[in-house]
């Protein structure tokens, strides 16, 4: 049997009366990149902390490589937090050497990867953000982890640098590591093999992007008077998103949109929803369900 790098079985975590994570099941298989999406407060960070063994579940079970989280399992995990977890006043080489020593690795693990060599003697705090991220990735990967956990891995870097960071992630997955990534950006979600969407502490959708989006549709309004159309839709309680000069209205049928526009001249059609629009819909309905007494 293949051992799962990470598994949550019916995991619940409460803080007082507040249930941050509510009966969540999650599996990360070897060689797989799983994206964890959710609005702030959806429970992503709590779930990650549970998986890393930094928090204990109130109910349910966490398994890492088939065992409960421990120091032994931590040794097999590479983690890049949002704040990167580097020492700003050490160079990338010193950061890497320190981390290799902590993980009990030999000097081979502390050798700088090629793109970082020319920055080897500059302290991390003075490096551009893209290079800092590369260094944080190198540090998380140096002990060849079997599970890689990345929190918002490419925030603030340009598209080419982002593609390069994703090559590193894909390389680790190809070598057999399971990867769990949290992100707020749909560009990044596209890099994952599978997504898990959380809202109000629960998993509300899981699968590939086409599976999650399904046949969800939005209404699209094209009008020379888009500003006026936006105002009319707003007044009718249909918040619209501006894209170029068209308005996209999630969760409203073209007929209802047409009526809300009154006598404003516009073409109203229907189009497949994007992942972000579907995400929005899922989150709002989960929050509405939770808000009910």
């Amino acid at each position, binding site marked *: 049997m293949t051992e799962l790098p990470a598994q949550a079985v019916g995991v619940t975590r409460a803080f007082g009366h507040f249930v941050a994570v509510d009966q969540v099941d999650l599996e990360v298989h070897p060689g797989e990149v799983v994206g964890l999406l959710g609005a702030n407060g959806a429970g992503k960070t709590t779930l990650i902390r549970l998986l890393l063994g930094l928090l204990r579940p109130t109910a349910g079970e966490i398994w890492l490589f088939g065992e409960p989280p421990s120091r032994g399992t931590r040794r097999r995990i590479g983690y890049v937090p949002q704040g990167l977890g580097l020492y700003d006043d050490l160079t990338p080489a010193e950061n890497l050497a320190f981390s290799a020593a902590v993980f009990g690795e030999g000097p081979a693990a502390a050798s700088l990867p090629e793109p970082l060599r020319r920055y080897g003697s500059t302290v991390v705090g003075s490096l551009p953000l893209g290079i800092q991220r590369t260094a944080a990735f190198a540090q998380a990967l140096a002990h060849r982890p079997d599970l890689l956990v990345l929190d918002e891995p490419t925030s603030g870097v340009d*598209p080419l640098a982002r593609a390069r960071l994703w090559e590193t992630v894909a390389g680790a997955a190809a070598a057999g590591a399971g990867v769990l990534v949290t992100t707020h950006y749909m560009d990044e979600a596209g890099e994952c093999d599978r997504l898990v969407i959380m809202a109000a502490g629960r998993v509300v959708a899981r699968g590939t992007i086409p599976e999650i989006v399904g046949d969800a549709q939005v209404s699209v309004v094209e009008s020379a008077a888009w500003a006026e159309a936006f105002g009319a839709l707003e007044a009718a309680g249909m918040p619209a998103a501006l894209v*170029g000069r068209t308005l996209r209205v999630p969760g409203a049928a073209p007929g209802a949109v047409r009526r809300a526009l009154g006598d404003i001249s516009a073409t109203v059609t229907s189009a497949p929803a994007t992942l972000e629009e579907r995400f929005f819909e899922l989150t709002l309905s989960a929050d509405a369900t939770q808000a009910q007494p």
Partner: protein
Amino acid sequence: MTTPSAGRRDWWGTDDVSVRFGSTLALDHVWFRAEPGQVSAVVGGDGAGRTTLLRCLAGALAPTSGQVRRPGPLATGYLSAGSGTYPDLSVAENLAFRAAAYRVPPETARQRTAELLARTGLDKVTGRLAGQLSGGMRQKLGVIAAMVHSPDLLVLDEPTTGVDPVSRADLWLLITRAAADGAAVVIATSYLDEAERARHVLVLDAGSELASGTADQIVAAMQGTLTVTSTRPAGEAGRRAWRREGRWRVWNPDSAPSAGDGGTVRPDLQDAVTVAALARELARSGAEGESR
């Protein structure tokens, strides 16, 4: 040189603006136009020059050379990177202070802020200190504070960075509201899926323009073709390849797709911008190679 001027014009922006900090050229001859009633996006990674350009537009920084066309300070709204709110003031106090500073009549300010707060779910937390808001809420407050006086030019530096998709939708509602009211809106972002929503996009890299125009124009201006393969191509072609959505995109500058590939794809904005960055990177490393 900067020319504040009264009244609305057909555009605000920069003409051939350069900014030098000591030996660093932060902006290198940048031309940028933001039109009233439109959203324009300035895209780039860390160090690309986005913040420097936005500070020039907002009047917070004078360029070393070139001209900035902007409205007067009272007709400009600016959200600096990292949220321009006072952490020790409540939501209501932050907005009241901004409205007073911009000389908005109290009754107008009350109506306008009440509407914007309700629209974005902040109406339930008006008494809370800004420093105790979540990141998304703080950014929403920052944007509302920047637009409370209905500015002609609204400059927002990374309003959505680190913000979850639900708060981001609220932020876009505010951005759209401002454009619908006739403001020229300029946003900085490092994400192209977001920039794609803007009418006009300027991509910066190391202080200079990498691409500009509508998303369609930037895509149309891309040289060569793109092919998709399931593995990274070997040899020289590997340097023209990058990973996207689980596969490899390979850029062929001379249009002719190389043999044995998985077919050409129609590029989108993200592809076109990545190609522009790649072309610059290859040209730079080529020049370094020759000079050795």
